[in-house]
């Protein structure tokens, strides 16, 4: 009976390295490839599209998607989904401006309070899903409605006295200024990317997430507290949606109604393009990053094409399908 737990030294080095490129890791490369492809196509159609300024702008917009998609990545990895991001984001934005009233003095409290809001909604989502067996689609859908109602009601349709406030200058600065030529917002995204990648790949928490996503029953029987992890991940999703709300309102200055709506589809699509399996258990946040960039770049190309609204929608949908068919197909039954 042969046993071989160490790599066989006779094997060429490149072959060993190649083995570490599992299909899931390859998808991350494909996702970045897709992003580059979109930039190339954009440059061909509109010279200047891939200029430094243009790329920077696209990346900043992509980061907004990336923040929301970070939370979405976590919950999709365990086979769930978070449909409450639109109004958690929106509520966070509104909460930030109305608490800080556009002044730096209360900025810190406002930010903390807003992030706490994200955590709280995530907690409710997670508990409903993990402990009360409410399907994720229903729970987060309901939560979205709840947040929408609360936001609209409490802010009286965003007509309350403090609603027209701006985000605190400190927040606006973080989002809009450059640090050594690189937008601070991108540095924030980079930091978050590193943290999440580390969390998923190098910690026991990450290992548990993948285990649950691949086989919840087996994880339970291996002693993993599936419920606790589930709640934690939905809390993270809420946290990131709130963060996105803060950043967005810092970028745009004021809160608007419906500012979170586009991010639902985009966060899910970014994850899938990035190679995260919607069934759970497979994928990396790096892929989501690439997916966010691809998506936003695609939209930008379409916008630059002066295509009518309807054409953009159609091309958008077709492109997503095309990319999915390329590398997003489920495997055959094992």
């Amino acid at each position, binding site marked *: *009976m*042969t*046993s*071989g*737990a*160490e*790599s*066989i030294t006779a094997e060429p080095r490149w072959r060993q390295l190649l*083995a*570490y490129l*599992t299909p899931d890791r390859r998808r991350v490369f494909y996702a970045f490839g897709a992003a580059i492809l979109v930039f190339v196509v954009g440059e061909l159609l509109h010279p200047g599209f891939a200029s430094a300024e243009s790329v920077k702008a696209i990346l900043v917009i992509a980061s907004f998607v990336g923040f929301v998609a970070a939370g979405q990545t976590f919950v999709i990895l365990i086979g769930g989904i978070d449909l409450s991001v639109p109004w958690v984001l929106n509520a966070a934005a509104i909460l930030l401006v109305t608490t800080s009233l556009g002044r730096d003095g209360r900025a810190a409290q406002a930010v903390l309070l807003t992030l706490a809001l994200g955590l709280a909604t995530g907690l409710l989502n997670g508990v409903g899903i993990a402990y009360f067996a409410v399907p994720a689609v229903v729970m987060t859908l309901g939560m979205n409605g709840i947040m929408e109602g609360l936001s609209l009601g409490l802010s009286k349709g965003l007509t309350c006295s403090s609603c027209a406030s701006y985000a605190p200058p400190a927040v606006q600065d973080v989002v809009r200024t450059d640090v050594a030529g690189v937008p601070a917002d991108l540095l924030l995204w980079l930091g978050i990317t590193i943290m999440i990648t580390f969390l998923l790949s*190098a*910690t*026991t*928490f990450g*290992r*548990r997430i*993948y*285990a649950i996503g*691949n*086989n919840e*029953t*087996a*994880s*339970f*029987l*291996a*002693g*993993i*507290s599936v419920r606790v992890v589930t709640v934690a991940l939905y809390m993270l999703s809420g946290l990131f949606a709130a963060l996105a709300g803060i950043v967005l309102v810092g970028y745009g200055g004021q809160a608007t109604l419906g500012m979170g709506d586009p991010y639902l589809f985009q966060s899910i699509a970014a994850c899938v393009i990035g190679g995260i399996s919607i069934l759970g*258990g*497979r994928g990396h946040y790096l892929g989501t990053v690439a997916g966010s960039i691809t998506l936003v770049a695609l939209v930008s190309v379409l916008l630059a094409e002066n295509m009518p609204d309807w054409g953009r929608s159609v091309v958008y949908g077709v492109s997503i399908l095309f990319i999915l068919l390329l590398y997003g197909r489920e495997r055959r039954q*094992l």
Partner: protein
Amino acid sequence: MDASFSADFGEVHALVGENGAGKSTMIKILSGVLRPDAGTLEVRGSPVTFRNPHDARALGVGTVFQELTLMPWMTVAENLFLRNEPQGRTGLIQRRRLAARADEVFGRLGIEGIDPYELPAGLSLAHRQVIEIARALLGDPDILFLDEPTSALAEQEVDWLFALVRSLREHGKCVIFTSHRWGEVANLADRITVFRNGEHVATRDRLTEGEAVTLMTGRTIDRMYPERQPVADGLPAALEVRDLRGERVQGVSFTLRRGEILGVGGLAGQGQRDLFMTLFGAHRQTGGELLIDGKAQRIRKPSDAIRQRMGIALVPEDRKTEGLMLPMSVRDNLTLAVLGRVAFYGVLKPRTEQAYVRRAVQRLHVQTTRPSVQEVATLSGGNQQKVLIGRWLIAQSDVLLLFDITRGVDVGTKHDIYELMMELVAEGKSLLFYSSETEEMARLCHRVLVMREGRIAAELAGEAADAEAIVAASLREHAA
């Protein structure tokens, strides 16, 4: 793998072989569920290809699979007539008549005690097996495959099935069945084909059990199973269970000694699985006491069981759905239960992990070249099972609950597992063991508890615990 055999009309043909020998796969191919990689299939003398189960059915093939395929949310009647429903003049299915028709069918076949309006979840495993058999018979097949049809059936039901099979033979049909119970095979079969490791070994009209086992395993009985060491006396019990109650556990009491292999037998579906799950904390315990190493403990969830000073481990029945994360690496699967030990405040320590993995892989002879990357899904069934067991070896559990761990595993791996079990008890660990092959339990266990309807109906020990006695105790009906 190279397998061939033939069967005639008017014959009852038995396929025997160990778990993992290929019998179920053969039946799946012959039923059109799986496609063969190579080879030919002839029905009534002409070559055929089954592209799907439909083709097989069209040629008169009926099958009762080992894994029951009842639709969980359809009633018994709906399940019975699935794809065979009675249609009215309008071409629509007559749902109202389904139950009455079901009653008729049951009456005709001599089946009683099954409510056609019931959902499968409300039925015993035996009844579910009976319904599957009835369903296969509805199509009036000329060739009937029965894969382990009696694993859950009690004496009366087994007699019923045998009468049925004999009647089919009289009518010129061909019945091919598999079974682990030698008594049934000898009783019923006209011819016996032996498989081993995916290959056809022999076809005979007559075989003694000893000859069969030798053909099935390639070794004589004595050398297949390792020497069983006696249990040391005087040591405190590892596990003491007093009147345990749970979902289908109706008051179970027993003691598991250190260094002992205790078997839990009985017909399939009598509560054995629930007993294991309840002991492990995976199912809710509604009554009774559990003493681990002499102290009463509350086990509410698996992590409670695992984290005991005398750790408990469960190797569950279906490694694919309950045990392994197939797309994850060998390493990931192995260290899953001991993540705390291979990490520093939550951050994984690759070298520590690698060491654990290497040791486990070497001890179990797992065939894998790159355990940190190789997906468990790509391993053979035997190696997969080893990985699952390896997880609990790494966890250094003292009490191992092993549920049908040799299912779908090749002979070589089986032998490795037996040896491992002996090593473990020699180290002082305790094993609770359930197997669908009574022979295994008889040869490996020091004692065997026979379960019936959630209770322990009998306890056999030592010499008295041979395969025949276990089967006899399992089949015996409740005293009135």
